[in-house]
């Protein structure tokens, strides 16, 4: 799936994460992470971001993450929202029916 515009989701409040997703034609996936727990959870956060991008079939995106200690479920929610906004689509909730 192609991203059409830069988009943002989330805030800089505690327990949240601000995600910015930008189209990156020809550049693959590039992730920039700023987090107080980068040393412990940096790899896990990046894995979640890559997993969400893969679920949407996004192969070219630059993702900037300003983490304030968000849980995995919050990172996932913010990423889903940012990708939908960047792709200018409404989420198809029936996709959740196929999730184990």
């Amino acid at each position, binding site marked *: 799936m192609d991203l059409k515009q830069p988009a943002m989701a989330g805030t800089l409040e505690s*327990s*949240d994460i601000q995600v910015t997703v930008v189209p990156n034609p020809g550049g693959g996936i590039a992730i920039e992470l700023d987090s107080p727990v980068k040393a412990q959870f940096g790899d896990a956060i990046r894995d979640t971001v890559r997993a969400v991008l893969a679920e949407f079939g996004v192969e070219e995106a630059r993702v900037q993450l300003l983490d304030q200690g*968000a*849980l995995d*479920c919050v990172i996932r*929610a*913010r990423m889903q*929202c940012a990708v939908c906004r960047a792709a200018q689509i409404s*989420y198809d909730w029936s996709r*959740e029916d196929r999730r184990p």
Partner: protein
Amino acid sequence: MTHSGLKRTSLYAGGSSPGKLLEARFYHEDCLVYDLEDSVAPAEKDAARFLVYQAVRWHRPPDKYVLIRVNGLYSPYLEEDLEMAVRARPDAIRLPKVEHAEEVRRIDARISAIEETAGIAVGQTELWCNIESALGAVNAKEIAAASPRVAALALGAEDYTASMGALRSKAGWEIFYARMQVLEACRLAGISAQDAVFSDFQDEAGLREDLTMTRGLGFDGKTVIHPRQIDLVNAAFSPTPKEIRNALRVLEALEEGERNHTGVVVVDGSMVDKPMERRARTVLAQAKAAGLWKEEG
């Protein structure tokens, strides 16, 4: 741990703030309402849906009755709210500003279709209908009976008062009639009756007075506006030690009467009739659910 079945307190958690969604799990409210409506700005409705879905579907508090309040029945957000909310599998969806039974039937049909597509048992998702206008209050009986999904009616006093051109007061006389309309509708339909919020969360004495009246009228619980109201409201809608003792005496007297083949059972000079027995059993069921009494054996 599973939900106790009590619905004494309902606390709203704003759907756009991860911090608030997390925090709300740790209070003692019986019912946690994840909100997509008033607490979420129009530009953040999509973001709130994703957050609430994650919170309810994958991380719901196991000891609470979980609800999602969707946006208004005629808002452009409702359809997608329902698509998400049903799939998140809350105990109930809370509908704002319900005024007609037909609206409930329309939502019921939509929920059934989504449940079927998603592989969820049809009928599993309950409905709480907020009664927030004079028209809603007048139609409360039909609304309560509009679908087997309707598990509670909840009075929304601020909008109701505005619809009546009345002024909101702490004494609450301007909502007394609506309280009775909602309560009567709930009792006829056999569902839970939920009272309106007491807005001044710093006025503990005022809240106590309000609770004395609404508990006495027969409500089952109340929506709270602030976590500091939870313990007071929970206590008000729980049986007192005296009520529990009385209920036990009534049931013991009935058992003794049965053993001795006594036709009429008397406790403290009053004949124990069916309504007294029913009240005693309700008190003990509530006390048990609240952890205030344990059945022997």
